[in-house]
């Protein structure tokens, strides 16, 4: 029984180019207070284009209707539970958006005099201090633009440290449960990726690590809690094994939401890590970004952090561009500043005690779902769950229904799907991360929906296979999209 949704009118909307017609416009510029310059005279006839071919021409009201209608074809956290595992889709407080638009901050130019930028630099300084307290690390750069960019920065720091010691190493160990960005990052930094198999509990296999850790290993990239939502109980032992060989431990901070206020990477052997401010610290995902991926390090890596570094000189903050050991610049200017403002707003709203309470509620929600769904779905790893729980589709697959199909049926029930088919160490994974910002009522609706779908799979698997049934767009043909790519609109198309 579907409790959360019923059908309603939802308007069709074409492409903006299809409502365009010559002469319509949605803008008005002020009159020029200087003489108008003829482009051809100033730039040369050959440098000037005649027009922007096929660019839209639409009115203001059509513009707002177009994007508003399209928005109604999207699902967002504002509409309900968004249980994508590893993605931490928590409520995005609207005050974050308000303060990021504070005029002095939003219009600050990165090259304006530092005397005018003290307010911006104070945001950076305060956020740095709070992130260090949360992670237990010694220094942090806020410049990386997203998690993967943070990984890239962090692995370059690893390389820089090894090179400073005169031993270029070749390999990065990556557990088979890792996010795809980890091996991609290691390869981007010129390292060979060596796979580290998980043990039967889905955790780091210390004996395998003993075998594979040697003087050629630059670092291990590990996610903790790992991608099956389990805290790596042996993380300190693993770190000791690697440290004994002179290798470092990199932590992917995607799952930091399980740890804020109860444990700190800096206290369990991590040398370098990134945070995802758009996950743990609620800055919105915005349909795929922008994010921010600060990288926090232990003291030995501090000299290599990207320039510029924030420094206090007397009464003022200043940006230090001259750091001889630095890996250099990872991005122009100082990073996704507007995202940093939002993250700081989130931390200020919670405060220390609130952050810890958020973590506890995130763990509570995941375990509540796990307990309720365990009778209906295969739970491959029985270790205690932190902020997310991972099921397998074995029972449903026996009826021909896979995790992706269950996910599509979940849409009919009014929910965004969980993460499907990841991590790869779980066959047909259903990876569920509710986050702390879900009311009990919403969780109960979700649990009811999942149980109902499990029953549908038993009784009428074909019906589930054809889902979604109630959406305006039925199942999308992704194969044809890839086989014959149409990647832009053209007139008459």
């Amino acid at each position, binding site marked *: 029984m579907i409790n959360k949704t019923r059908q309603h009118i939802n308007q069709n909307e074409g492409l903006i180019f299809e409502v365009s017609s010559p002469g319509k416009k949605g803008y008005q510029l*002020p009159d*020029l207070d200087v003489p108008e310059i003829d482009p051809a005279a100033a730039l040369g006839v050959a440098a000037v284009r005649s027009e922007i071919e096929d660019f839209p021409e639409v009115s203001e009201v059509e513009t707002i209707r177009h994007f508003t209608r399209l928005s109604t074809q999207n699902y967002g956290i504002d509409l309900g539970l968004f249980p994508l595992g590893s993605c931490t889709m928590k409520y995005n407080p609207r005050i974050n958006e*308000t303060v990021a638009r504070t005029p002095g901050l939003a219009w600050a130019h990165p090259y304006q005099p530092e005397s005018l930028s003290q307010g911006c630099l104070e945001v950076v300084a305060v956020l740095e201090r709070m992130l260090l307290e949360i992670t237990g690390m010694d220094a942090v750069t806020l410049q990386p633009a997203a998690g*993967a960019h943070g990984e890239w920065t962090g692995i370059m720091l690893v390389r820089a440290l090894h090179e400073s010691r005169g031993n270029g190493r070749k390999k990065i160990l990556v557990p088979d449960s890792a996010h795809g960005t980890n091996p991609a990052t290691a390869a981007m930094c010129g390292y060979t990726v060596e796979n580290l198999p998980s043990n039967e509990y889905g955790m780091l296999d210390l004996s395998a690590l003993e075998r594979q850790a040697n003087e050629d290993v630059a670092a291990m990239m590990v996610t903790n809690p790992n991608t099956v939502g389990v805290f790596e109980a042996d993380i300190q032992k693993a770190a000791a094994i690697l440290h004994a060989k002179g290798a470092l431990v990199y932590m992917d901070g995607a799952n930091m939401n399980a740890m804020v206020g109860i444990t700190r990477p800096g206290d369990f052997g991590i040398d370098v890590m990134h945070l995802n401010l758009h996950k743990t610290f609620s800055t919105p995902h915005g349909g795929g970004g922008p994010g921010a991926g600060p990288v926090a390090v232990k003291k030995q890596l501090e000299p290599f952090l990207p320039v510029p570094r924030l420094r206090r000189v007397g009464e003022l903050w200043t940006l230090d561009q001259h750091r001889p050991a630095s890996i*250099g610049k990872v991005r122009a200017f100082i990073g996704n*500043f507007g995202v940093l403002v939002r993250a700081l707003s989130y931390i*200020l709203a919670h405060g220390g005690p609130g952050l810890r309470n958020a973590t506890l509620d995130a763990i509570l929600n995941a375990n509540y779902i796990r307990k309720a769904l365990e009778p209906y779905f295969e739970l491959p790893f029985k270790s205690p769950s932190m902020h997310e729980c991972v099921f397998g589709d074995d029972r449903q697959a026996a009826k021909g229904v896979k995790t992706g199909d269950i996910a599509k049926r979940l849409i009919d029930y009014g929910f965004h799907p969980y993460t499907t088919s990841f991590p790869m160490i779980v066959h047909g994974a259903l990876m569920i991360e509710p986050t702390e910002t879900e009311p009990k009522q919403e969780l109960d609706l979700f649990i009811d929906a999942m149980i109902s779908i499990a029953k549908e799979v038993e009784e009428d698997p074909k019906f589930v296979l054809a889902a979604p049934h109630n959406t305006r767009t039925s199942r999308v043909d992704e194969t044809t*999209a890839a086989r014959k790519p149409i*990647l*832009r609109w053209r007139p008459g198309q």
Partner: protein
Amino acid sequence: MRYLPKSDAERRQMLDEIGARSLDDLFAHLPEPVRLNRALDIAPGRSEYEIVDYFNKLGAQCGNYPSFLGAGVYRHYRPVLCDVVVSRGEFLTSYTPYQAEIAQGSLTTIFEFQTMVCQLTGMDVANASMYDGSTAVPEAALMAMRVTGRERIVVARAVHPEYRAVLDTNARNREMSVVEFAYDASTGLSDLAALEAAMDNQTAAVIMQSPNFFGGVESVKAAAEIAHKHGALLVLVFTEAVSLGLLKPPCEADIVCGELQSFAISPSYGGPFAGVIATKEKFLRQMPGRLAGQTKDSNGNRAFCLTLSTREQHIRREKATSNICTNQALIALMATVFMTVYGKKGLRELATQNLSKAHYLGGQLARKFSAPYFNELVATPRRAAGLVNDELLGQGIVGGLDLGRFYPELSGSLLLCATEMSQRADMDKVAEAINRA
């Protein structure tokens, strides 16, 4: 805590269901040595009012004065609709549109974004954003390396210095070598003879920016001919997207990459912005980043979905074209709304206003370089540049960028930018301060 939507009674009920005595029970399995046995040293939570007040006070320290800084970050008016659209919760609080059936809103706008970027740049395909212009440059270089099987990059010194710095960071960490070539000291344009001299048969790409860092409009065609003669690709970079409203699309380039900050994205002390890479159809498979494609749903209706993801890290892992995952989707949407609001006529009119303002300012100054320019120019004050900027700041105006910061040989010269937001009276003050002995 106002973001936590449960009563204590509900928590109790849930713990009972789980079979746990307390919330602390839920992580009692963490090994004792790793547990944080104290409270975080962060003050208790603050009210909404206090937080707004806190940021207002910080913002007030930043002046928000009229400014003549450009250099990759431009002060353009932001049409109201841009924020209205990106504030829709369905866009703001959605995820990367992997589940196409409930993400047609995002997917359709991405498809429109890709189309508009192609229309502006004269390319066949465009991706759905990179972090920013500076990180798009090394991604374009790597793409050219995959296409050509070569590892040498030749980059113009007139490309944004911070973009080049990011390229250098990449080069130091993988098989890539970077060589720079000079600009002409009198025109301020890239020196094509120097480019020719820097080329060899191992060069993967030539990277050039237009309008370049000094504001000069480069000859894309001539640079493309040199690059192609040596079997290399031309990567054309832009930092001022408004210029594309007037300038001929750089069709002769093989890859166009750049920064869309000018399209309704506030300067925000340097980010978040939105980078983009566009290219010819034949190089599509080597392009990094997300792509939305057109297809049909099972009822035969037009629909869109993410596609060609076999290039990406979540499928290909260490063999992916890039490790990029989260990009700048919401910012790209902002730019899409901006492009829609101005449209075909408006973007041209906007660009012409920028040109007119900059030429009004430039017309009063002895310019350092002779090349045609769009909305940025270089001038050398008769007094020390720092003194001129300080004096302007005293009048509530942010002056230009002292180029000595990035080009020692240009120390004492100012890079100035005028946009549609620059007022005549302020420009007169700037000209006066620069011209005074």
